[in-house]
């Protein structure tokens, strides 16, 4: 075997040196007691060196030859480059956004030793995991125990990073986008300022120290050292710029949402003397300590619910699985693009068999034919990749606008060095992968047969291997399209589905006057509720207004859950005023909502959401619910109405909800704020100044009100689903287009190669229609097999996708049938277009020409 391998390797060495070098290496190996591996390695080195030194001319010639033949086949070249550009472009675009989040080491000292320690708390519906939102915290006691006893870590701090935005007098007119960090956190991450100094703990209470980013320092302050030292801002909260962060600094948080300008010093949590949940811990492993060992130790000290992740994974824990899904999807697109390119190159190679035959007959070595064929593939891929890079670069800012804020600060542009390198490697790899089979085929053309075939053969050249490739491509395309469309439906569903209320013209108003202490059902608290309600109803353009202790819309975490805990499910309860459901635009399914009398008299009445009734009285007709009794906090309450379900946030599934009159003690929250839901006349904007003035006038003090459109409040929740919907929609379309391109290439090849045969058939009486359908059938046959295989694969792969989806069944037969129909129709059109040409063959012309 080794001898065979060596002989094979010796082919690398030019023939005139081959025997001599083999002998020389044998000699040396014997003298120096070296083995076969040494000889093999030396042979490779010497062979490549000789080849490169003396075949550069031929190399350039082959490159030129490939370029020339491509410019002659302009449409093929453009089509192939475009389809490849689609495939690689999607990959580049996605990697600009997620490379830093997923794969690139974080810009800290020895990032592979940094870990995040936290527990995960799930908010949302436990029955629907995708509707749940994990919150990452750690219990204070556990953090303190780890700090005191854990041996795996060199140092350990509480994460102290949160975003702040402020315009600082003396530091420009634009607000500075900042995150806070403690001196300890900066030290733990090993961040060293490139100018000035780092934070000092002693200054924390006296002034805000700032470290600004290199980028902002250069862009806004011209890289001047004069900004250091002086105090800026207001006298009671002065700022001092102490240093400059290294270039490319990224804050250790996924909460920044945009590029930051500076880091503001803050005091670290000192892990003594407080309780509750605190931010996760960031720690540096001792050298040589593995993650597994640290995990074991943390579990032993703090319990198994405390997780340890590498910092990068920890920061994006909530999004990471989705991002993996994206990575898999774009990798599949790339695969489809490569298969597509192989089909195109195969077809092209076959149609140039004559030319290769002549070249080979004239004595061109097979290696040269392979090389020029590979160069063609490389040129196509290179052009496609360059075009894709350019488009991604130009579209960069538009793309950033739609990506979720979580990953936005981490995006790079398409001309980032690392990304360019990755693109280059992917392009070369694609060129070799897609070009290898066609190149091999081209070099194996039998010169004699081709020359003979030119004169009189009637056999039709067949595109061997193309059927298998079309099948593969159709299968991959189907898997990808089904996956993409199912995912798209899930995310689009989140964006478009009915929240259970009318968000347009609805405002969430925080009232500056809470309710005073004391029983709510009596003055003065009652009169305050009443006054707020009355004043709000009198505002111009207000159609209706209703007061509440917390609103069931707009914010994700409003309301209490006491009642539903006693029932044993996760749910919410809200204290609301009269006419709340009418103001929200939430339909009443049965009974009535609260009247002003219910509120004033603090009646023990309740309205329950539809999902709530199905928990309390499974299977009961909603119309039969009003009048039933329910036990709340030990007392008997009467249900007066059933309301439609409301989604508190667009991504959560509706939870069982209980509405109580806000004046009852059971509806009281620990915070004393009052809120208003205000429905304005269509198109009317809230006049906050007037609202504040009228409320202040009514109460004779300063408090006012601030309004926010409910539709805007749900925007952050929609950012991610919207992005994923757009992304997977694009991926599905790209997969369809690529599959269509493959079918088109095969059909076009079929038509171009069978002109003679078609001429004969037409002469013998076949109709144009016969020919068109024959071409279509031949090109679509592999597609059918591919679709069948793809369906099986999609069914099997669906189980992995299911956990990412919201309210969509991955095995929904209608979705699969729909995708099969769309894919087949696209493919039929792709086959039919070139097939039309078959019908237009002029028999006398074709027969005459041969």
């Amino acid at each position, binding site marked *: 075997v080794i001898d065979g391998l060596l002989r094979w390797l010796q082919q690398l060495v030019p023939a005139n*040196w081959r*025997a*001599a*070098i*083999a*002998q*020389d*290496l*044998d*000699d*040396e190996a014997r003298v120096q007691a070296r083995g076969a591996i040494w000889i093999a390695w*030396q042979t490779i*080195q*010497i062979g*490549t*060196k*000789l080849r490169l*030194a*003396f075949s550069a001319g031929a190399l350039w010639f082959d490159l030129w030859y490939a370029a020339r033949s491509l410019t002659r086949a302009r449409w093929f070249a453009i089509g192939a480059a475009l389809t490849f550009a689609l495939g690689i472009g999607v990959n580049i675009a996605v990697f600009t956004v997620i490379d830093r989040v997923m794969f690139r080491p974080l810009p800290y000292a020895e990032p592979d030793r940094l870990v995040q320690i936290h527990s995960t708390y799930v908010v949302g519906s436990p029955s629907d995991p995708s509707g749940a939102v994990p919150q990452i915290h750690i219990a204070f006691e556990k953090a303190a125990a780890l700090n005191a006893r854990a041996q795996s870590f060199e140092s350990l701090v509480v994460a102290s990073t949160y975003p702040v935005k402020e315009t600082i007098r003396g530091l420009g007119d634009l607000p500075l986008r900042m995150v806070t960090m403690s001196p300890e956190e900066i030290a733990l991450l090993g961040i060293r300022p490139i100018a000035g100094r780092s934070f000092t703990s002693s200054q924390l209470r006296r002034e805000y120290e700032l470290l600004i980013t290199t980028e902002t320092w250069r862009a806004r302050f011209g890289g001047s050292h004069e900004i250091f030292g002086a105090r800026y801002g207001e006298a009671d909260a002065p700022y001092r710029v102490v240093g400059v962060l290294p270039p490319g600094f990224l804050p250790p948080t996924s909460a920044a949402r945009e590029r930051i300008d500076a880091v503001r010093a803050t005091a670290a949590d000192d892990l003594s003397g407080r309780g509750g949940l605190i931010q996760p811990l960031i720690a540096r492993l001792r050298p040589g300590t593995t993650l597994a060992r640290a995990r074991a130790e943390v579990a032993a000290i703090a319990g198994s619910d405390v997780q340890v992740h590498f910092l990068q994974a920890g920061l994006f824990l909530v999004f990471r699985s989705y991002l993996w899904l994206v990575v898999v999807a774009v990798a599949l697109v790339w695969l489809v693009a490569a298969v597509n390119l192989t089909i195109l190159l195969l077809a092209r190679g076959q149609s140039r068999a004559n030319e290769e035959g002549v070249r080979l007959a004239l004595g061109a070595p097979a290696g040269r034919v392979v090389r020029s064929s590979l160069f063609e593939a490389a040129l196509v891929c290179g052009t496609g990749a360059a075009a894709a890079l350019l488009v991604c670069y130009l579209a960069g800012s538009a793309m950033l606008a739609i990506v979720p804020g979580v990953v936005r600060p981490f995006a790079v542009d398409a001309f980032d060095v690392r990304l360019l390198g990755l693109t280059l490697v992917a392009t070369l790899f694609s060129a070799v992968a897609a070009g290898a089979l066609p190149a091999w085929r081209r070099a194996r053309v039998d010169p004699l047969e081709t020359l003979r075939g030119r004169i009189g053969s009637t056999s039709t050249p067949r595109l061997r291997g193309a059927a298998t490739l079309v099948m593969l491509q159709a299968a991959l395309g189907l898997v990808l399209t089904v996956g993409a469309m199912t995912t798209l439906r899930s995310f689009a569903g989140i964006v478009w589905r009915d929240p259970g209320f009318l968000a347009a013209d609805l405002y969430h108003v925080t009232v500056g006057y809470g309710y005073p202490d004391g029983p709510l059902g009596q003055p003065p608290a009652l009169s305050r509720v009443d006054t707020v309600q009355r004043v709000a109803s009198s505002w111009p353009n207000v159609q209706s207004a209703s007061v509440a202790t917390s609103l069931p819309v707009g914010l994700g975490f409003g309301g209490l859950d006491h009642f539903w805990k006693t029932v044993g499910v996760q749910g919410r309860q809200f204290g609301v005023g009269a006419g709340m459901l009418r103001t929200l635009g939430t339909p009443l399914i049965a009974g009535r909502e609260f009247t002003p009398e219910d509120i004033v008299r603090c009646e023990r009445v309740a309205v329950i959401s539809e999902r709530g009734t199905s928990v309390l009285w499974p299977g009961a007709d909603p119309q039969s619910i009003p009048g039933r009794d329910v036990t709340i906090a030990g007392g008997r309450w009467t249900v007066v109405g059933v309301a439609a379900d409301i989604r508190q946030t667009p991504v959560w599934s509706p939870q069982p909800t209980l509405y109580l009159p806000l004046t009852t003690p059971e509806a009281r929250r620990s915070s004393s704020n009052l809120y208003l839901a205000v429905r304005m006349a269509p198109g009317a904007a809230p006049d906050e100044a007037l609202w504040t003035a009228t409320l202040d006038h009514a109460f004779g003090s300063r408090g006012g009100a601030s309004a926010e459109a409910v539709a805007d409040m749900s925007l952050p929740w929609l950012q991610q689903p919207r992005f994923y919907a757009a992304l997977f929609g694009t991926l599905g379309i790209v997969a369809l287009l690529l599959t269509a391109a493959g079918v088109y290439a095969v059909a076009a090849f079929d038509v171009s190669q069978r002109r003679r045969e078609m001429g004969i058939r037409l002469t013998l009486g076949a109709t144009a229609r016969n020919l068109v359908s024959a071409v279509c059938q031949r090109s679509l046959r592999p597609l059918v097999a591919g679709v069948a295989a793809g369906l099986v694969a999609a069914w099997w792969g669906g189980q992995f996708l299911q956990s990412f989806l919201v309210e969509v069944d991955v095995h929904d037969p209608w979705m699969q049938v729909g995708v099969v129909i769309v894919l087949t129709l696209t493919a039929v059109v792709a086959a039919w277009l070139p097939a039309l040409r078959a019908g237009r063959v002029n028999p006398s012309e074709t027969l005459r020409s041969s």
Partner: protein
Amino acid sequence: MAPVQTPLLGEVEQLVLLAALRLGDEAYAVSIRALILEEAGVDLSRGTIYVTLERLERKGYVTSWFGDPQAVRGGKARRMCRLKPAGLAAVRTAKRGLDRLAAGTVVAKTVGKRS
């Protein structure tokens, strides 16, 4: 001095030519490489030696032929080489040029001391 008519010799080419000259009938890639390492202290890669020999042959400075097959089982012939007159002239020209340029400089003295 009349301008040099022959193409300039590269440093490696000079080394290889000189080594081949010294080795006479025993000159082939392995022995040339060993001699250069021993005498000049320059460790050239094997590939470089072969590339240089090929280049020198193309320039018409050396000629090569296959010697007798080696007296081992499966032994093949070594590719031996010898300087052609043009090669000899080229080394001579290069050496003379170097000597004249170096005359009277520190380089000339140190070189003298070492040898």
